[in-house]
């Protein structure tokens, strides 16, 4: 019997086993591991408790302060200092400072630090994002990161694989965010529990890398262990461009595909040709409704950014909607490009000017308001629509606030009307 792409990558990295099956526990070699300003302090403390003289490989560890950056207060600043000092002490090359950084799940692929065929663990739940590169990438905890920094290994349980086949041409304003929200609405927040979500089909084949990252980013919201899209010409062009530009240490990669006789625990098919943009309503990412059912809901804040939709094409889409328009008088618009490079490009292309002229703000890369950190917290009773990935109770601020999740075009249109809207309403 054949293997799925996830199984193949796990097997190629597993230590001491010749074949694997879902449910098996194994110890695997990791190609790269990373953490941020919230998760790495614990990992560093645990690593130091081992009194080990060296990390497993100084070039295969990433320390990316991005959640509460630029440091929002003394306590956050002290947490970042832990990462900075540790990087200096142990010679870790991939530490990213304010002004030269980005949100981790947009920054790492941009820099060519994660490759197709890799096994990567990150101390952040949205590590699944990088499956869009055809790698097995999964979110773990701080202690797992400490162990990986010491030994370059991680214990893993082989997941079942679920195949999601998307067919049809998406309508205007429908993108990766709508496709993944549609799937999460169908599966529920634990519908892909402990599974590998494999995205395939002609729709996926034609998706841009940005849209693929968006889809894999939210695999965790269905309870998945990882999300993955088999690498193709689109993936290769992206990876080769990143290697040319940033010259990472590793320049070669392996492409894996699922076997034709691979075994899946479930296969679901979605023909999305008639899908209209969708929105996840409070307080679960699976509470998905067509945008047409949610018009007239007043919004106090719009956030466009995050590891889900903070990339250049997201900026472009939002700018296309906001060009020559103004943000509604009772609404705040906060735009956060996910990396310094995206920020620079958005300025060059004129998107930043569009956002600011409309009456919105254009911020330095940060996770910021997505997790209720800083740069746009909600007051009691306020409602936001955001291109982020979670809308649990209190996610963006007061426990009595509300968050709707959408794609950039819907968020931008909502900023103009002050209510949940579709670009065609403008």
């Amino acid at each position, binding site marked *: 019997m054949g293997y799925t792409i996830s199984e193949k990558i796990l097997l190629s990295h597993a230590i001491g086993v010749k074949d694997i099956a879902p449910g098996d526990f194994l110890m695997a070699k990791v190609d790269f591991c990373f953490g941020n300003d919230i998760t790495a302090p614990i990992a560093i403390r645990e690593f130091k408790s081992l009194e080990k003289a060296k990390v497993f490989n100084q070039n295969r560890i990433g320390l990316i302060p991005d959640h509460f950056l630029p440091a929002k207060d003394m306590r956050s600043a002290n947490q970042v200092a832990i990462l900075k000092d540790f990087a200096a002490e142990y010679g870790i090359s991939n530490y990213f400072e304010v002004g030269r950084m980005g949100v981790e799940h947009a920054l790492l692929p941009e820099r060519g630090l994660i490759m197709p065929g890799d096994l990567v663990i990150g101390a952040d739940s949205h590590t699944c994002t990088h499956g869009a590169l055809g790698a097995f990438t999964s979110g773990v905890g701080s202690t797992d990161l400490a162990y990986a920094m010491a030994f370059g290994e991680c214990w893993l349980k082989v997941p079942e694989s679920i195949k999601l086949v998307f067919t049809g041409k998406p309508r205007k304003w429908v993108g990766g965010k709508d496709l993944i929200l549609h799937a999460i609405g169908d599966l529920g927040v*634990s519908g892909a529990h402990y599974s590998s979500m494999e995205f395939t089909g002609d729709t996926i084949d034609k998706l841009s890398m940005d849209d693929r990252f968006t889809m894999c980013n939210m695999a965790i919201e269905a309870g998945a262990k990882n999300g993955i899209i088999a690498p193709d010409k689109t993936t290769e062009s992206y990876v080769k461009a990143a290697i040319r530009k940033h010259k990472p240490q590793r320049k070669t990669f392996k492409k894996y595909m699922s076997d034709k006789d691979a075994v899946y625990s479930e296969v679901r098919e979605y023909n999305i040709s008639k899908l209209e943009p969708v929105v996840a309503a409070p307080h679960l990412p699976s509470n998905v409704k067509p945008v047409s059912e949610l018009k007239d809901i007043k919004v106090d804040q719009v956030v466009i950014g995050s590891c889900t939709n903070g990339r250049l094409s997201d900026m472009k889409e939002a700018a296309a909607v906001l060009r020559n328009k103004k943000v509604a008088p009772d609404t705040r618009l906060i735009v956060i490009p996910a990396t310094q490079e995206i920020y620079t490009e958005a300025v060059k292309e004129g998107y930043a000017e569009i956002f600011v002229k409309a009456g919105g703000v254009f911020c330095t890369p940060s996770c910021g308001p997505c997790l209720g950190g800083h740069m746009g917290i909600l007051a009691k009773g306020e409602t936001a629509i955001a291109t982020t990935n979670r809308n649990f109770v209190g996610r963006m601020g007061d426990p009595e606030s509300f968050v709707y999740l959408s794609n950039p075009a819907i968020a931008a249109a909502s900023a103009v009307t002050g209510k949940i809207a579709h670009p065609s309403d403008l």
Partner: protein
Amino acid sequence: MRLKGKVFKFGNDINTDEIIPARYLDTSDPAELAEHCMEDADKNFIKKMKEGDVIVAGENFGCGSSREHAPVAIKAAGVSCVIAKSFARIFYRNAINIGLPIFTSIEAAETLKQGDRVVVSVKKGEISKAGQKKVFKSEVYPDFIRDIIEKGGLMEIAKEKIPAKDKIKPGDKVKAEVKPKAKAKPKAVKKVRKKAKPKAKPGKTAKKKAKKRTVKSKK
């Protein structure tokens, strides 16, 4: 080992933002995190619970973020174990890695009610109401996981794995293949921080220093 305590019952999909909201993630100190345990699910939980009490929940407990702060807060608050119908996968591995006992049992999670007194045998994975014979069996851990739990967490296993030659020797500087320029940076940062200190209110700064010492001594 037998755990005993009162049940605190929660529903399905209790997520990490409810267990430990992001506004408290500017620290990794277990004692500080414990003060806010379960705050956005039940703001009075930490006031009502006592050392040894048990959290019983529905499906998908701990869904959402990978923050290890979630099981750390639960453990540091004095919760002896979590029983649920099912656990979200990152929470599951984090709890095991830090030595917080967790048990998967649909029957126990459905039968136990708020306020019930329970007894849990960690080794056997058996749960029962105090004074009653009926035993609920938890899903059995694979050997691999049982080993981590029995040793007290993943770091205990890690410590056994490091040969003496790879350890830092007392008095040694940590060896790192780092250019001298990179090493100089932390000193520059420290200088800036020292300059900033006088600007802070003396009372607040003193308090912060005291807190730091407490954390270090706990290590």
